[in-house]
C-alpha cells in the first residue's frame, strides 16, 4: 500500500458513550463503541467494515463523516480541489485532519467531498420533498449552480442511477417509489456533488433480493466511473466479499482482522472471523458446514477489561491472552493483519 493513494487515514480512533448519566453527575461507565481503531482507505477503494450488530461499525462510519465527534484519535482526509481562499489545517503530507476542522465554511467544504448512503431507503428520504428536491438538496445547500442547472444535473444523475426517463421521477414523492427506486434516489443524491468518499451503511440489507444485485452492481459501476472510495458497512460477509477490495472485521469496537477480501474470507486467521465465516448460511443444501461453537453471545462493551475483547468466547484462548492486553494488529501475512496472540 503506497501512502500516495491514501484518501482517508484513521488513527487510533475511539468513541465512548456514557451509560446512564445522572443529573449534574459525571458518567462513570462508558460503552466503548469504537476503541482505538486504525485503518486507511485508498482512492477508488471499497473498504468493508464487517461485524455483528453493536460492534461499532456504524459509529465508525458516522465518525468519519463528522456526524459524531470522536473521543480520541485522528481522522484525516486528502481533500483536493478546495477553494484557494479557504485556509484548511493541513498536516505535513497535505492531509486535512478532520478533528481540527474549524468554522462553518471549512466544514461545509468537507461535506462536498464525503457523502453517505443509508440503510433504510424508507427513512432516509424526506417524505415531504419531491425526488428533485431530494437529489438537488446538496447542490442547493452548497450553492452550486442555479435552479435550472441543478435540475439538469439532477435529471442526469437520475439517468445515471437507472431511473429513466428522469422526467417521470423528478416530481414524485418517495412514497410513490419502490424500495429499490428509493435507494437509487439516495445514491443519486449522494453522488450529485461528485464526492470522493462515500460511507454506505448496509445499503442493500432492507431491499428485496431481486433488487439487491442491481443496487450493488450500480455502486460498483459508479466506483469505476468516478473513482470514488467507499466505506462499505455490512453484517453480510457474502455481500462484503462481492463489494469490497479489503475488509476489516470488527468485534466490540476493535478491528480484529484486516486484509484483502479474498485472503480474509478464504483464509481467516482470527478465531472470531473463522466463526463468523463458518456461520454464514450457504444457498446450497448439499454443502454441510462445519459447526464452530462459540461460547455465549456478544456482550455490550461497557468498561471492557484491558485483555483481548474476544477472550471470554474464544475457543483457543490461553493464559497468555488472559494476562496480556488486547493484542495489537500485526501483519501475519502480506497485507493481512490480525489482532490475536494465538493465530
Amino acid at each position, binding site marked *: 500500500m503506497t501512502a500516495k493513494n491514501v484518501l482517508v487515514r484513521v488513527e487510533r480512533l475511539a468513541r465512548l458513550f456514557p451509560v446512564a448519566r445522572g443529573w449534574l453527575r459525571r458518567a462513570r461507565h462508558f460503552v466503548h463503541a469504537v476503541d482505538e481503531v486504525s485503518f486507511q482507505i485508498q482512492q477508488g477503494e471499497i473498504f468493508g467494515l464487517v461485524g455483528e450488530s453493536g460492534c461499532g461499525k456504524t459509529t465508525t462510519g458516522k465518525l468519519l463523516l463528522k456526524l459524531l465527534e470522536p473521543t480520541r484519535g485522528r481522522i484525516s482526509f486528502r481533500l483536493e480541489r478546495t477553494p484557494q481562499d479557504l485556509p484548511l489545517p493541513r498536516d505535513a503530507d497535505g492531509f486535512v485532519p478532520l478533528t481540527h476542522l474549524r468554522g462553518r465554511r471549512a466544514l461545509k467544504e468537507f461535506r462536498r467531498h464525503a457523502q453517505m448512503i443509508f440503510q433504510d431507503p424508507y427513512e432516509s428520504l424526506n417524505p415531504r420533498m419531491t425526488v428533485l428536491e431530494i437529489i438537488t438538496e446538496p447542490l442547493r445547500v452548497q450553492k452550486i449552480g442555479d435552479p435550472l442547472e441543478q435540475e439538469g444535473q439532477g435529471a442526469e444523475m437520475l439517468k445515471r442511477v437507472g431511473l429513466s426517463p428522469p422526467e417521470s421521477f423528478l416530481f414524485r414523492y418517495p412514497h410513490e417509489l419502490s424500495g429499490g427506486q428509493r435507494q437509487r434516489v439516495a445514491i443519486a443524491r449522494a453522488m450529485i456533488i461528485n464526492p470522493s468518499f462515500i460511507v454506505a451503511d448496509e445499503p442493500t440489507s432492507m431491499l428485496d*433480493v431481486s433488487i439487491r444485485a442491481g443496487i450493488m452492481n450500480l455502486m460498483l459501476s459508479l466506483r469505476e466511473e468516478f473513482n470514488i472510495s467507499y466505506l462499505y458497512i455490512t453484517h453480510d460477509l457474502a455481500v462484503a*466479499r462481492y463489494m469490497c477490495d479489503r475488509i476489516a472485521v470488527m468485534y466490540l469496537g476493535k478491528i480484529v482482522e484486516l486484509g484483502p477480501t479474498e485472503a480474509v474470507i478464504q483464509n481467516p486467521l482470527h478465531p472470531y472471523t473463522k466463526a463468523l465465516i463458518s456461520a454464514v448460511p450457504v444457498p446450497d443444501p448439499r454443502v454441510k458446514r462445519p459447526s464452530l461453537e462459540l461460547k455465549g453471545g456478544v456482550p455490550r462493551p461497557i468498561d471492557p477489561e484491558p485483555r483481548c475483547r474476544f477472550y471470554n468466547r474464544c475457543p483457543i484462548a490461553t493464559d497468555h491472552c488472559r494476562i496480556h492486553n488486547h493484542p495489537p494488529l500485526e501483519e501475519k501475512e502480506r497485507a493481512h493483519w490480525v489482532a490475536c496472540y494465538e493465530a
Partner: protein
Amino acid sequence: MALLEVCGLTVHYQTRQGEVHAIDGVSFTLEPGEALGLVGESGCGKTSIALALLRLLPENALAKRGRILFAGRDLLELPEEEMRQIRWKGISMIFQGAMNSLNPVYRVGDQIIEAILTHNPQASERQARAKVAQLFELVGLDPERLDRFPHEYSGGMKQRAVIAMALACDPKIVIADEPTTALDVIVQDKILREMRRIQKETGVSMIYISHDMAVIAEVADTIGVMYAGKLVELGPAEEIFTSPVHPYTEALLSAFPSIHGEKRRLKSLPGEPPDLLHPPPGCRFHPRCPYATAVCQREEPPLEPHRDGGQAACWHPL
C-alpha cells in the same frame, strides 16, 4: 396420507384502491416430519399463506377459493370454536419478530405455562411447569431461566423461548415466519441448527418462511418458490438449487452473492415485482423474464410436474 393439503388457495385483500391478489391458486402438501420452505420477496404472499393456514387473516381478506385440508378436515369450513382448538395444538406459529412480543412484565416461563393452561385446561400448573422445563431443555435453554424476565434474555435466547412456546402444545405443524431475520449470523446459525435438530427429534412438520434462499437451503427438505402471489416452483431442495426449472428461481439464485466458490458477477433482474392490484395477464413473471414469449403474456402457466419430482409453472422451463 398427507398431513396438510392446500388446494388452489386464493386470498384477496379488499383495499381502498381495489382488490389485491395476494395469493392466487396455491397448492402444496406437507407430509408428517417434512420441512417445507417457502421463499419469496416481500409481498409475494408467503406470510398470507401462513395466516390463512391459521385462519388469522385480517378482516379485509377474502379467502376466496380453495381448501386447506388438515387431518382430513377443511380448515376454511371449520367453526371458529374448533379452529381455536387447532391453533397451537394442531398448527402453531412463530411469528416474525415474535421475540420482541414477549411481555416484558411477566416471567418467560409463566408466559409459556399460561399458553399451555389455556389450551389444556385439564393440566395442572405443576404439569405445565414440568413441560416447560422439558421444552427449555429441548431448545437449548437452561430450565433455571424459567423464572427470568424477557429483558434478562439475549436475542438468541428470546428466539429459543419463542420456539419453545410454539412447541408447547405438541403441535403437528410449526410455521416459522422469518425465524432468524433480526439475529446476527452466529446466533442465526445456532438457532437454525437447533430447529433442525428439534424437528428431527420430535418429528414435527415445519413450514419455514423466508426471503433468504440461504436460510431456507439450511433447513428445508422441500422448497416452494413464490412470486407475486403464485407458487412458481415446488420441489426437493437439492433439485431447486442445482437445477432450477423456473426462470425466477434461477434469477433468485444468481442474485445472491456467496462466500464460497468463484466470485461471479451477480445478475440483477430488470424491473420490480408487479403491483398486485393489477397483476399482469398471463404469467406474472413475464415482464421481467428473459425467456418470455407471446404465450407468456397471454396465458397463465399451470403448476406442472417436471423431471425429478419437482413442479414448476412456466411455459419455457429451463
